């Protein structure tokens, strides 16, 4: 919260999804036909078999923030990130960002990696995927090798890498794009403890540079607790809680997940969660 002006501002974002596969495809076709005739309009009427994947989501991201986004599986976290990145188009709402800010998102790891190619070749492939040029990759090569700690392994085919090693490679490449808004969506889940610790350390330092911010999406409560300075809690496509009190927000999140249980059961579950997670 070093800066009062947001570098990313999400306003009233809505996204519909369909429950039924056939309806899903049919609506897709209908949307295309209507797009061909007229430009897109705000579309906030649910059709048959549709539900809100995201509903009226608004938040601001400030420079220096590590904004943790938590929520049960299927609460719309990744959908929100995909809209911010520009992969999905919202049905209503707008994403604002400061001009010349670059967004890099890293979702589940290993996407776009080619198992038959060596680690080094994969660095070039991944970097090209993020829109880097050959020269930029070569300039960043030392950083990537150093950060991923894969010296000596880079000539092996990537298919032989463990999932943790792939995670290191992909994460290092994503970081080398020097994003202003870095979206980490469950990307660190498979790295080993030492690497994760290093990443968190790095993220904390990273956002201290001017104009940088991180959106950290995770289900690992403890991790969010350690890195985030602000938390959004999502449920059912909506933001139900936003707070700078990270610990409070997380216990709100857990309680919300258990809200359908009665008091005794809740205490029991809470104890279990505490045992395993917090």
């Amino acid at each position: 919260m070093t800066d009062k002006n947001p570098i990313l501002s999400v306003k009233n974002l809505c996204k519909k999804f369909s429950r039924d596969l056939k309806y899903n495809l049919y609506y897709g076709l209908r949307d295309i036909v209507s797009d061909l005739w007229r430009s897109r309009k705000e579309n906030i009427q649910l059709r048959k078999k549709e539900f809100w994947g995201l509903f009226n989501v608004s938040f601001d991201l400030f420079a220096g923030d590590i904004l943790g986004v938590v929520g049960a599986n299927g609460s719309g976290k990744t959908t929100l990130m995909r809209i911010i990145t520009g992969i999905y188009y919202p049905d209503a709402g707008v994403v604002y960002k400061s001009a010349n800010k670059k967004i890099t998102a890293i979702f589940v790891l290993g996407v776009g990696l080619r198992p038959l190619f060596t680690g080094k070749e994969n660095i070039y492939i991944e970097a090209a995927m993020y829109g880097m040029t050959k020269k930029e990759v070569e300039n960043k090569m030392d950083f990537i090798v150093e950060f991923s700690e894969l010296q000596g392994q880079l000539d092996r085919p990537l298919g032989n890498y463990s999932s943790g090693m792939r995670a290191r490679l992909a994460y290092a490449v994503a970081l080398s794009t020097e994003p202003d808004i870095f979206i980490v969506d469950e990307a660190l889940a498979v790295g080993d403890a030492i690497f994760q610790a290093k990443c968190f350390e790095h993220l904390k330092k990273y956002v201290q540079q001017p104009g940088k911010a991180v959106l950290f999406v995770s289900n690992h409560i403890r991790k969010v607790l350690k890195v985030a300075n602000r938390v959004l809690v999502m449920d059912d496509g909506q933001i139900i809680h936003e707070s700078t009190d990270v610990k409070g927000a997380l216990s709100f999140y857990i309680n919300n997940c258990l809200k359908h249980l009665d008091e005794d059961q809740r205490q029991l579950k809470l104890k279990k969660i505490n045992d395993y997670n917090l």
Partner: protein
Amino acid sequence: MLIKFIVLRVPDKNTSEQLIEWHSYKSTKNTGWYTIFKTIRNYSYFIQKLVQISILKEFKRSYLGLLWLFILPVVAALVWVCMNSAGIINPGKTEVPYPAYVFLSTSIWGFFIEIYKNTNNIFLSGGRMKLMVRFPYEAFIAEKAIVHLLRFTIPFVINLIVLLFFDVRFTWTIFLFPFSLFPLFILGMAIGLLVSIFRVLLEDLAIFADQAMGFLMFLTPVVYAPDLQLGFLGQLIRINPLTYLIGFSRDLLTKGSFYQPVIWAGCILFSFVFFLLTVRIFIIAEPRVIERLIK
């Protein structure tokens, strides 16, 4: 249920750094041709990488590697030559030797059908990558086109050598041959791009299209001569633009003459307009297809 809850909160004006609208419900891709070319240029390194991957990955496990790109067409040509010398292929009454005729026609047909096969699957190939990073799909189209051209150069050169073996004598028109393939290229690509949308959203139509493309080969004079009297089917052959597009390219090589130049020009115009239209449709439809993509 129509809820008008949207009261758009525009960000404060007194910000030092101006916020711009980055992405919204009314975002549309700029479908202008200049933008398309600019995107392709900006992503040229990515395209180069994609091309490298798709050519290399096929032979990555083999010891001979890229040599296969030469070996396979040579073997195919040799089989053809052997069948011919064994007399399996019965020569008909064509002006050029029948084997040469079929041989050339099928490779031109292959050129057309392969670009269709490469592009009609553009959303589904490549795994989940396309749901994870924001890509311009133009880059993928460019990749498919370049890979296709690269992969067809070698067989075509080998086939030309085989044609010499079949007593075909080339004239200067051989130099026009590569250019005459261009309309086939864009037509195949246009059909492929259109079908790629249906491949995700209306698979029935995509399956139908695959079958129809296979059947189309028999409605095009590829294994028989164009002047064959076939009654009703003959009518279909006559209105099939591929008859002229393939016939023109073929006659450039085998006869050194122009096959039906006026109708051919018409077919080129048709291919071109169809291509421009399809690329527009593709780019407008692409975000809608991606949000319906389930992987």
